[in-house]
């Protein structure tokens, strides 16, 4: 691109082309973080369910901490690996939302050590994470994620209707609905945009 003067039409063409470039930036690699958290939640919840139902030993609940222990380093690694040439306003907003939700989720888990009957933890966590998914979807204006988030919010209330360790199965189902399916859809959309740009 040269430093030459422009006609009015050329100006408009440059503005629209460059703004389109930044829009494509938004979805790139976003699905992988959904998939990371989704598969960790699914595997851990199924493992906890199997161990609790077979042994009845509630110490296996400690395994829930595997989610943040594996998830956070994995996410940091992925974010570092991702192209960091530009930060969109939407990606900054989404990062901040998840930082706040992550802190709240951590505090809610820690308070369980003080009083494990204080609140239905599975319900509260699901509601929190699904709200984050719905807000993220609204920020990037990506309908499958908005739908997944709100569907997840509705399904979270199912946990109040199910007793005991069966709540864990709903949590596993939610991991598929709120994180794994939207993650794959987001990556597919991202691949399509990339293919269109290369065409």
């Amino acid at each position, binding site marked *: 691109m040269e*430093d030459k003067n422009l006609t009015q039409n*050329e100006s408009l063409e440059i503005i629209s082309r*460059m703004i389109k470039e930044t829009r494509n930036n938004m979805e790139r690699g976003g699905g992988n973080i959904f998939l990371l958290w989704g598969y960790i939640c699914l595997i851990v919840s199924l493992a906890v369910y199997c161990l609790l139902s077979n042994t009845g030993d509630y110490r296996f609940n400690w395994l829930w901490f595997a989610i943040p222990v594996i998830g956070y380093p994995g996410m940091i690694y992925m974010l570092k690996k991702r192209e960091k*040439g*530009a*930060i969109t306003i939407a990606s900054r907003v989404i990062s901040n939302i998840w930082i706040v939700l992550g802190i709240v989720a951590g505090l809610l888990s820690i308070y369980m050590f003080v009083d494990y009957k204080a609140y239905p933890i599975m319900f509260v966590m699901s509601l929190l994470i699904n709200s984050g998914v719905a807000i993220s979807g609204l920020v990037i204006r990506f309908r499958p994620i908005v739908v997944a988030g709100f569907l997840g919010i509705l399904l979270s209330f199912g946990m109040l209707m199910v007793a005991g360790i069966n709540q864990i199965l709903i949590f596993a189902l939610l991991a598929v609905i709120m994180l794994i399916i939207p993650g794959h859809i987001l990556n597919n959309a991202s691949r399509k945009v990339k293919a269109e740009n290369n065409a």
Partner: protein
Amino acid sequence: MPKDNVNSFRELDPLLHSQLRLAVMSLLISLEEADFVYLREKTGSTAGNLSVQLDKLSQAKYIEVDKGYSGKKPRTVCRITDTGRKAFEEYLEALKTYIG
């Protein structure tokens, strides 16, 4: 061209009415920040030319340029300022008078 039409045209900001500077501002308007490599790739410009144009935008206070490091590699990050945002909006308004 009728005289009335000529008078209704607003002057286009000469700093923005250039291919590369307009491209940089159009990228930065919808981003929180972008680094030098990203801007060079998206605009398809040479490093030397981009550097000169960024200096011009920076001198006009349309953008902020932070020179730092990412690990051991030098990294230049650019952000649009409020002055730059206002100038860009005025440029668009002026452009409308030519097209509308």
